[in-house]
């Protein structure tokens, strides 16, 4: 009986560990990295640098996925989840426009992306 207790105890520990590992932490540092990437994306679109702009857009897409997961796990934040979904869609669109050398439309989409970020920040960004 004692042996089974230990097995259950260790199984719980392993499960708890894997749940913790699947949780995404989106903190101020993470957001700063995203902001820098966004500025880099805007710059690379302006410089007509396809390769770097596509890299930035794809990196942002992945980061927005993390943000979406974070707010979905947090709960009671449907608006944040929707904003991140919209942002992911915009990064996909930007990748497409940049790949076809349509930098003008990509620039406009990047502005919409920045505005979407700002809308979310107006609700969720903590004052220092």
């Amino acid at each position: 009986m004692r042996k089974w207790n230990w097995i259950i105890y260790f199984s719980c520990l392993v499960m708890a560990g894997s749940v913790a590992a699947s949780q995404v932490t989106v903190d101020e540092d993470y957001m700063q990295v995203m902001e820098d990437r966004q500025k880099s994306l805007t710059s690379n679109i302006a410089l007509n640098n396809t390769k770097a702009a596509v890299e930035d857009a794809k990196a942002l897409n992945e980061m927005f996925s993390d943000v979406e997961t974070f707010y979905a796990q947090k709960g009671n934040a449907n608006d944040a989840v929707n904003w991140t979904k919209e942002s992911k869609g915009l990064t996909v669109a930007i990748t497409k426009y940049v790949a076809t050398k349509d930098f003008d439309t990509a620039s406009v989409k990047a502005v919409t992306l920045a505005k979407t970020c700002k809308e979310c920040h107006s609700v969720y960004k903590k004052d220092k």
Partner: protein
Amino acid sequence: MDNKSRRDFLLKSGAGLGAAALSGFIPGIGFLSAASAAELIDPLAPKQPHFPAKVKTVIWLHMDGAPSTLDLFDYKPELVKLAGKPIPESFLKGIKTSTQGGITKLFWSDKRTFKQYGDSGAWFSDLLPNLSQHADKIAFIKSSVTVGATHDISILKLNTGGLNPGRPSLGAWMNYALGSANKELPSYVVLYNDNKEPRAGSVNWSSGFLPAVYQGVAFRPGDSPILDLERPGALAKAEQRNALDLLKRLNERRAGFYPEDTELQARIQSYELADRMQVSAPEAVDLSKESEATREAYGLNDEITKGYGEVLLRARRLTERGVRFIQVVSGPALPDGDFRNWDAHNSLEKNHGNNARMVDKPIAALLADLKERGLLDTTLVVWASEFGRTPWGESGDGRDHNPWGYTQWMAGGGIKAGTTFGETDEIGVQAVGKKVDTYDLHATVLQLVGLNHLKTTFLHDGRSERPTVVYGEVIKELIA
């Protein structure tokens, strides 16, 4: 300007000219080759806009201290009805109200009255009896928003788009992208009606990471707009000319050995500009030849309106002379009065009574004067402030800062006059519908001077920078 600051001015101008030439980056064109960059010795040479400009000059009227536009333009009958009661919770949804005064009861002065004016039926309060006569010249933006922090930070954002010093002001971007239309004067001038520079300082007309030559030049009130610009009494005109000619010959000889040294070539030009400005700058701001009717119209015969009226009359004269961007910062109604600016945390009636009286007549006169001289079609007048003020009271009879919804306006060339874009909620707490942030206002102003804000770029630290940072949307509804 003492000898040191005059040297600084010349050095900065020289360094700026050189840096622009060395960077070789021209808006709308991109990078030039090294050889042609070396030939680029005049960064203030006129440059082509991205598309035909609707206006040549921008007069940027910054209302320092942030007026309550609820008491000037944005009439809210519901606020009148609810005055003295606590603010309904629903109006505060989605905003963080960490302003210093806390949230108290809704406030309305029983002295305030509103009326509609012109064919457009725009609302004006009793505080603006003269400006209201120009209702049909104005396009209102009633859904302005910004970042609400301290005055200094929000003023910086209003002028540069940044929350920290270091970004170029809107005027500097315009100067950089279009160059000068008058070689005798700075193409970006800052005016103010105070006995000291505006409180938020020169970072608000800085060229930031752009070459220094594009920064605004502050003209002091009074007869000598730039300190010590005039030739020292002991130095005859011919003597100065001889000295400058000798200096020019020596510099040119040196430049012949080092043709790639664009900084030196720029320095040669900056000495000549300073020499020309000794004549042109005082003449441009000399109001003695203005008619008595004009002086009266601008309020120069009234103690309250005199200072601001003089500044706006100078703005008109600079507009006539082709200055591209004129930034006017409102000062105190009376030099030694109680209210230094519009920041009415208390005694709103007295504060706004003085400040509105100070600007109302001169701005109305400016609009009428520009129209009469055929300049309004090519000039854009912008009424801007760092934020607005809350519908709830502070200290009993004042109002706190409101970055969530307030009114700014534009008048002049290229705008849809007599219209209103956007609105605030029923009591004026926050903008509803499409909001207009500082970046959108900047993008719209640039559009009117012929510049695509997305393509007005400068390479700084390996990154392409633009006036609107990563934001900005032209408010097409405001453009005719």
